[in-house]
């Protein structure tokens, strides 16, 4: 599979993402600079974390207008798989590819810690390889990860089964205390209506090798690979 990892000025998780995709999972991966207007032959795109454009104005607000994001809009419009991590999630929300917005953490603190994620549905290209009842231990590192959307949008997300991950405690209970940033409904990650674009605040790319304390993040990338492989067999058969 061919992966594209976007690079904005001040992206800082791009290399982690490339390391996981290329070295850990062994797939061809290339950086795509924010001024490029094409994603090449990419099968899936990762919008990495960081502080694109210094987080000026709002997180992701400026990156959303960069040339490469126009290509991502087209790619997503054509059904291509796009995963936004942390700042990438913020960029996708600003771009309108995902609903809602991410605002300052409830306690105004930057949170850098391991949290637990509950996967609510395996019916997506990003969660299909995650065993049911498996809690993902994945780090977060953000100051503005409080998910907000109006009530109508939230209800729609719930009704369509589009909330992919929620923050939970070590026993899988969704509690107020296990919510690190004040996100509505403990939401950590969602997908779009077509289920081909997803974003999450935690960093799965930082939890793909046991030496890093957890390899749970790998399940998300393996889901992505599984979905891509399935697509290719369908395409070949047709």
């Amino acid at each position: 599979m061919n992966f594209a990892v976007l690079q904005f000025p001040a992206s800082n998780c791009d290399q982690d993402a490339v390391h996981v995709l290329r070295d850990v999972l062994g797939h061809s991966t290339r950086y795509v600079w924010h001024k490029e207007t094409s994603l090449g032959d990419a099968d899936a795109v990762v919008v990495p974390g960081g502080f694109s454009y210094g987080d000026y104005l709002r997180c992701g607000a400026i990156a959303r207008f960069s040339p490469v994001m126009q290509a991502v809009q087209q790619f997503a419009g054509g059904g291509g798989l796009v995963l936004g991590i942390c700042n990438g999630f913020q960029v996708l929300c600003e771009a309108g590819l995902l609903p809602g917005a991410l605002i300052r953490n409830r306690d105004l603190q930057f949170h850098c810690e391991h949290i637990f994620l509950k996967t609510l549905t395996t019916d997506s290209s990003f969660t299909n390889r995650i065993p049911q009842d498996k809690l993902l231990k994945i780090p977060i590192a953000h100051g503005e990860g409080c998910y907000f959307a109006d009530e109508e949008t939230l209800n729609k997300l719930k009704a369509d089964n589009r909330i992919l991950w929620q923050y939970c405690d070590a026993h899988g209970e969704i509690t107020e205390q296990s919510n690190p940033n004040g996100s509505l409904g403990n939401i950590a990650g969602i997908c779009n209506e077509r289920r081909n674009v997803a974003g999450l605040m935690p960093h799965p790319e930082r939890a793909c090798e046991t030496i890093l304390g957890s390899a749970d993040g790998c399940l998300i990338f393996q889901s992505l690979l599984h979905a891509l492989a399935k697509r290719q067999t369908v395409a070949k058969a047709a």
Partner: protein
Amino acid sequence: MRRAADFADGNRESDKAGYQQPRVSLDRHQDTRPEHHAHSDPHRKSTKQFHAGNVTGPGRRFNRRFQAASTNKKYWRPRRAFPNIGRGSFTGLFGSDMKAKIIITPKKAVVDPQGKAVQSALEHMGYNGINAVHVGKFLEIELDGADKETVRRQLDEACHRFLSNPVIEDYKLELE
């Protein structure tokens, strides 16, 4: 010390009617018009140059740039802060200086932890009777334009598409 009454006079502008700009027909999520590329600053060096591994010393790089700046006209183009945002130019044939003031505040439904922190600090300092504090942003934009209404329309669009996020923020635009 100022008395609490000075603060809680119920005179916040946003409480008055007509505070919000009308937002009809512009839905950023359904904006299918061709997008222009923002922030493709022609002077910015790609970080790829750093990745490429051909390390040039800071001295050499600086000298080269410095010489170029004094001899090569291409380094003398004035920079525009936001080259490609919005369609059309603000400059008309009979342009005149204008100033736009944009106040962006969090929507009432959005939790504003910053505002809450400021409010509680004010209360700790002894300023009583503060009902709410909302921390937002203030932008001052200097521009040329012939027709105030055209400029207002363009800025209104820029506010909606870029300067504010309608999901979480309200804005107020003033032109003078």
